[in-house]
């Protein structure tokens, strides 16, 4: 059997075998996370340094606008940044302007704040979901106590210790948003940066990132994180491997496999080119 | 009364419409037919019909998952004109046609268009309630439904021209895996690459709108196409002028567009 014939055989392999290979390439790194060496780029570094220089007790406001389909893309970043803020002794106010968001806030509390022994209402609070998109953002920033009667668990906001110091946007030192769609960074620039001059960091999907370039170029967003890659870099910075690094392992394997498939397909194509021309 | 920052947009709209309308009129009044660059994706539609006839297997058609009340409406409507053509061919050559729909309003339109197409071929009885199928309003449920149809009804050809979203790659490749030839087309930028990689033939961007002129060869469409080309030439000339001006440091034209073209 000639090489060309062999390649033809390879290329006519059952597509199911390729699918199984892809499945394994993604599955194995998720089950057995491997250390993926990440090179930390500017955006995660900037946010990291910003949080590092904030005095303990400063208030960080978080908007978690993640939906189930974008969990692998954005959740890792959210958890890493929250974990860093907790470690630095910042006080964190969790909000959401998307109905599915609170679920992820609760998950962050469960896996970061609770094990770290942080106290609910003192070190952090979860205010829950407000409908109304960008308009609701504006309202909350103007008057937290007016926009939220109770927190996510039904406690009166007026009775929560941390909220005694958080009344308007002026009491916030940093805003971090995680957005899988909707008004995203633009909305927060209009509502938090333009009127109040708050520092804003944005984490979005890879598809949404380019539409935020104008804001980063203009300095309105201090750090633009995109996709699980930024999350993996942040996890590297805080030395706390999480879902993003596991995801990047899957990414690496899947990419190598697909590049290999493209390579094989081209070898086969060129090995058989003469033959095809004869036909 | 006119928003000042929209002067230029309104002018552009009116000027382009006037040019296109004028060209349509002059074609209707018998102006010489313009030369036309061939579009390979379009001749492929007849190839698809031929293949389905030979194999006695169905053709699958979809105008994509986009809606009818936003800027993509044009792409969906343009896609539906291929459904009309396919229904006519299906009636003529007795091929089963399966058209799947995601948007309910598009579905009601597609039913009319398909019925009409079969009627034009003189075979209205070949249209059945199973020809145009509404699958689901939910994008991924729609996609899963189409995957099932590919496996079970094994179409000989898959024509997917319209407003496509994230399911593009999956459907085009699944059709190929199921043994169909695929003809794709969309003007949704981020979906074109998937079609280019997987489909046998592709209509890129404006080609989906031009297709009607090629298929029907009617003078309205030809005139329109001529008018569109003139509009494109104007854009190119204005763009070139702007580049020259900006290069020599005169930003007036660019600022003018920025100020009045919102």
């Amino acid at each position, binding site marked *: 059997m000639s090489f060309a014939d062999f390649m033809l055989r390879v290329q006519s392999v059952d597509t199911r075998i390729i699918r199984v290979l892809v499945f394994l390439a993604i599955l194995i790194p*998720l089950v057995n996370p491997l250390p993926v060496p990440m090179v930390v780029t500017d955006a995660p570094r900037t946010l990291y340094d910003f949080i590092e220089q904030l005095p303990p007790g400063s208030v960080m406001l978080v908007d978690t606008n993640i939906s189930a389909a974008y969990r692998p893309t954005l959740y890792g970043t959210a958890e890493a940044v929250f974990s860093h803020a907790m470690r630095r002794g910042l006080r964190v106010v969790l909000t959401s302007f998307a109905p599915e968001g609170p679920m992820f806030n609760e998950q962050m509390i469960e896996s970061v704040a609770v094990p770290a022994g942080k106290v609910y209402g003192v070190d952090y609070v979860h205010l829950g979901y407000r409908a109304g998109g960008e308009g609701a953002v504006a309202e909350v920033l103007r008057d937290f106590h007016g926009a939220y009667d109770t927190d996510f668990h039904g406690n009166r906001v007026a009775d929560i210790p941390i909220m005694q110091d958080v009344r308007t946007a002026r009491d916030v030192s940093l805003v971090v948003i995680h957005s899988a769609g909707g008004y995203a960074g633009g909305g927060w620039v209009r509502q938090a940066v333009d009127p109040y001059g708050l520092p804003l960091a944005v984490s979005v999907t890879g598809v949404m990132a380019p539409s935020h370039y104008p804001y980063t170029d203009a300095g309105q967003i201090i750090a633009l994180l995109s996709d699980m890659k930024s999350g993996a870099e942040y996890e590297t910075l805080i030395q706390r491997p999480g879902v993003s690094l596991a995801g990047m392992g899957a990414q690496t394997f899947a990419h190598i496999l697909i590049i290999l498939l493209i390579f094989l397909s081209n070898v086969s194509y060129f090995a058989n080119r003469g033959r095809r021309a004869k036909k | 009364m006119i928003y000042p920052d929209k002067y230029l947009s309104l002018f552009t709209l009116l000027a382009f419409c006037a040019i296109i309308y004028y060209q349509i009129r002059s074609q209707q009044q018998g102006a010489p037919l313009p030369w036309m660059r061939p579009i390979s994706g379009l001749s492929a539609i007849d190839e698809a019909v031929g293949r389905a006839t030979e194999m006695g297997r169905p053709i699958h058609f979809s105008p994509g998952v986009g809606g009818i009340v936003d800027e993509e409406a044009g792409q969906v409507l343009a896609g539906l004109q291929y459904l009309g053509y396919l229904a006519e061919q299906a009636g003529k050559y007795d091929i089963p046609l399966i058209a799947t729909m995601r948007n309910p309003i598009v579905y009601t339109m597609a039913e009319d268009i398909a019925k009409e197409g079969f009627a034009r071929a003189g075979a209205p009885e070949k249209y059945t309630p199973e020809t145009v199928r509404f699958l689901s309003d939910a994008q991924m449920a729609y996609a899963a439904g189409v995957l099932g149809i590919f496996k079970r009804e094994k179409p000989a050809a898959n024509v997917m021209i319209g407003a496509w979203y994230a399911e593009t790659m999956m459907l085009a490749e699944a059709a190929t895996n199921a043994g169909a030839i695929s003809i794709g087309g969309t003007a949704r930028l981020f979906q074109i690459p998937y079609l280019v990689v997987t489909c046998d033939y592709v209509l890129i961007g404006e080609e989906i709108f031009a297709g009607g002129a090629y298929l029907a060869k009617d003078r309205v469409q030809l005139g329109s196409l001529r008018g569109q080309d003139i509009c494109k030439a104007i854009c190119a000339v204005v763009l070139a002028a702007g580049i020259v001006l900006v290069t020599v440091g005169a930003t007036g034209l660019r600022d003018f567009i920025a100020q009045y073209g919102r």
Partner: protein
Amino acid sequence: MISESLGIWMAGLLSIAIFSYLLGDNPVFKLAEHMFVGAGAGHAITMGFGNIRDVGWIPMVRDGRITIIVAMVAGLLLYSRFVRGYSWLARWGVAVMVGIGTGVLLRGLPAAQILAQIRATMIPLNSIDNLIIILGTLGGISFFMFTFKGNAATHNLGLLGRLAMMVCFGAAFGNAVFQRTGQAAGAIQNMLKVFGIE
């Protein structure tokens, strides 16, 4: 009855059922697919009903917004297709919808897709990067000329435009691999939860 573990099991098993398509059509996928399509349609009915009630019926009856009657009638007329001889009435509602779409595209595209893109390309010819953007854009326009024969220069320009498009498609394909792997990882994580792996 609503328990977290029930949710995890349901989500995981259904994800596996959908993925089973990758090994070929099979009864498990068929069942999941049919339930998925049915659930999607059912959810749409729920949402549609809510819209008719909240956007139509309540404002009309409670707030006395009589103009809404127009839409309610046009919506009901869609069902005239089931009445022999009156099916043409269904087109009135469709006409409103197509009218909205046509209006939106005609009013939006000149500014958003033509003027904005032209303005963004009006950049000085002072770097290789800018030259690439300019030639690629003009080339793209030239490629989409259907009825002008042009000359060698425009032909070559069109070819350049096509090459630029291919780079654009290649980049999008490359990014898609990243994005889609992430989504697959999400689905696989749903499956892993069944086995207690997070």
